[in-house]
């Protein structure tokens, strides 16, 4: 019976191989396909600096054709449209979006927006969107990171917003565009040199150094600006409290990427000749950087989330003992207080926030993170895409931006957000020395956002290509391995680091 099966399969396979003969065979050196070429003129350096907005060359090849929206297009308010918005927001944020949808419905009664939380993390969202693109059931608007957008771009799925932005009636005026924080705005343009805009900034954050303010005051520490300063403090603490772990860093991924930037160690970038994204982190500068932190971890001065049994390091921080400073996302600012027991809070536990320390003061760098919103091309259904655009525009409005930031700690993405009544009221509520956890949170959030604004010139993002997210998670895992590795001696450690770097690199490019 089963022998028959085998024959049957064998035949099937034979026929396939016959097909093979009929088919064209690949020339040895073949140029990469569409997406890669489009980015080929992209700046050669390892990361696209955002503070200095890249020069636009309209003749450069476009990653996707700009959708042609005639200037005289008018919104057809008679026919109903339904647009889908996929995201991964937590409950509270989702509630806000739902509120916006109802408000938006009042403005445009004929547009129905269906928001949906399709996954737990952005990669999963991207997977779903990718699959839905294959199946032709993709949403109109999706929340996500640039590398996902790059992924969609392989199917020419993202909608180029340029003509929508430039539309006299429904678009954005120049000052409206300038109202966006330049760095964030530029990110939407970072996919090619033709100035194609594929995304609008949505919820943005960076990493900040959160420290136990009273404790610092008590021992007369100044807020550290470099890692050396930070670890000097850490050692001092350690000398006082032997079982303390003075400093925590929540995201290993971020630590590696940011530190690499600060150490001026290549991480990822675009190959100058082929123009394809490439992985570069396997170099000595990066290894030195890793060794620097590994040393601190070994000396019990530092801990990361993975080393903390997958608990945010703020977890220990909140106990007002052992851990007195940590680097976390400003998006989660409030968690510096949330969960801290009342007794701790009443005992005078207060949190301060500062920019991320850097290796040298000359080369500060701070990762800029947080998802954007991207529109997806819906064939030639202009009205539908216009509707989607309008909602996107609405969500990124000053009012909304402010509304979204205050509870979360994400920074408003538009300057005018700070002029809104809502923001003013919020500012008014902030008290100099809060006595309730809620007040303290508000104060801290405000400080975090200020920090965000003041340092936005130090923001950077990494190159965006089909392996970038894989690289990101891999370097994180790499860091954890090395930190957790129990080295016999210097040489052993070096060899281990080398092998691990090598493996990780092979793994990613393979």
């Amino acid at each position, binding site marked *: 019976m089963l022998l028959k099966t085998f024959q*049957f399969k064998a035949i099937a396979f034979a026929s396939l191989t016959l097909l093979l003969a009929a088919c064209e065979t690949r020339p040895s050196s073949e140029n990469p396909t569409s997406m890669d070429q489009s980015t080929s003129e992209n700046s050669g350096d390892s990361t696209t600096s955002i503070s200095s907005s890249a020069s636009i060359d309209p003749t450069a090849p476009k990653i996707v054709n700009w959708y042609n929206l005639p200037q005289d297009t008018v919104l057809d308010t008679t026919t109903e449209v339904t647009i889908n918005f996929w995201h991964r927001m937590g409950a509270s944020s989702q509630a806000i979006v739902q509120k916006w949808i109802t408000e938006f419905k009042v403005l445009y009664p004929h547009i129905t927006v269906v928001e949906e939380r399709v996954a*737990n993390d952005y990669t999963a969202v991207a997977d779903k969107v990718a699959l839905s693109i294959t199946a032709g*059931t993709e949403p109109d608007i999706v929340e996500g990171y640039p590398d996902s957008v790059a992924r969609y771009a392989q199917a020419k799925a993202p909608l180029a917003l340029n003509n929508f932005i430039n539309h006299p009636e429904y678009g954005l005026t120049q000052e409206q565009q300038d109202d966006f924080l330049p760095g964030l705005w530029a990110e939407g343009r970072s996919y090619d040199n033709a100035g194609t805009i594929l995304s609008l900034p949505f919820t943005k954050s960076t990493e900040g150094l959160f420290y136990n303010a009273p404790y610092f005051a008590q021992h007369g520490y100044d807020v550290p600006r470099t890692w050396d300063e930070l670890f000097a403090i850490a050692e001092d603490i350690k000398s006082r409290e032997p079982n303390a772990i003075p400093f925590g860093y929540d995201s290993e991924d971020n630590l590696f990427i940011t530190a690499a930037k600060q150490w001026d160690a290549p991480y990822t970038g675009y190959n100058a000749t082929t123009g394809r994204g490439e992985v570069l982190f396997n170099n000595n500068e990066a290894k030195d950087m890793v060794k620097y932190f590994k040393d601190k971890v070994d000396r019990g001065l530092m801990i990361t989330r993975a080393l903390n049994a997958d608990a945010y390091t703020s977890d220990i921080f909140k106990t007002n003992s052992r851990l007195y400073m940590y680097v976390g996302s400003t998006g989660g600012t409030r968690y510096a207080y*949330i969960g801290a027991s009342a007794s701790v809070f009443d005992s005078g536990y207060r949190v301060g926030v500062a920019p991320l320390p850097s290796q040298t003061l000359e080369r500060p760098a701070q990762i800029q993170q947080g998802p954007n919103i991207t529109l997806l091309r819906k064939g030639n259904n202009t009205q539908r895409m216009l509707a989607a655009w309008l909602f996107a525009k609405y969500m990124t409005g000053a009012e909304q931006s402010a509304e979204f930031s205050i509870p979360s700690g994400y920074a408003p993405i538009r300057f005018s957000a700070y002029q809104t009544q809502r923001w003013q009221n919020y500012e008014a509520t902030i008290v100099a020395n809060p006595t309730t956890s809620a007040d303290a949170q508000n104060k801290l959030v405000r400080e975090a956002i200020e920090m965000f604004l003041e340092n936005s010139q130090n923001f950077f993002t990494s190159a965006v290509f089909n392996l970038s997210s894989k690289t990101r998670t891999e370097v994180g895992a790499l860091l954890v391995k090395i930190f957790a590795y129990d080295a016999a001696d210097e040489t052993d450690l070096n060899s281990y680091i080398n092998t691990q770097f090598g493996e990780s690199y092979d793994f990613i490019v393979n």
Partner: protein
Amino acid sequence: MAKAIHLNINQDYQFDQKLKIQRTAQLFRNILLYTFLTVMAFVVIVPFYWMLNVSFQSSNEVLNSLNVSFFPKVFSPQNYLNVFLYSSAAQGNIDFSRYLFNTVLVAFFTTLGGTFFSILVAFALARLNFKGRDLIFTILLATMMIPGEMLVISNFVTVSRLGWVNANDAGSYLAVIIPFLVSIFHIYLLRQTFKQIPNELYYAAKVDGCTDFKYLWKVMVPMAKSSIVTIIILRIMGTWNAYIWQDIVANEKYKLVTTWLRSSFVDLADTGSGRVLTNYQMAATVIVTVPLLLLFIFFRKYIMSGVSRSGVKG
């Protein structure tokens, strides 16, 4: 004479001796058996003991205690209630009961449809003879060896073309139920059983003017009920353990318990530690395990003879 008697006694004595030896050997063997079984049983049971233990610990204990506790420091049965009340941000505020409901629903229909189709196909393959039967059976056997992931993507495209993916309605259920409704493994198992039902019964039924279909349901199915019960259990288990496929196709509201068990209970709402609240997780696991355990205890007899049948050559 006396000597003889003495001899006899002696022999009897030796005889007793033999008996004793045998008895002790027997005893020894039993002791061995029971110790072996008990040890194995212990090994098997430990994870469950642990599951229960954790499921009764307080959140504070699972998050902050610095050494394992073999019994809950603070006995907190309320976990079992909280599992249902707990709506973690990570799950977009869809609570456990919803997932349980989905699972039960899906399990019900997959079992119903799946078993029904398995019976039909197995019958056709085992009883009726028609051109190309062997070919079909061969192909089926071959597909039994396919790793499921070879099918995932194409199937995803198919179901989404049918508009079932992330559908906010029964569509999501269809997407979870339909694609893997027909299980070749079960067909195989059932066919083996059917094969063993003597042909004469079929001829007799024919003579009694019984149609094929009626014969299937009135004679074959009752005779194969143990195998069918087994299939049902396997089906339910399948749904209970379904992970990847349903996670891909169904949107949050329509996913099944496994997803919940794995990715929910991430502690963001309470203390923001970002850790998994294992006590809730385990409580939930216990909740989904118990009904199946009862099911088994209830059907033990059938299941046992059922699965063993499947082994016999057909």
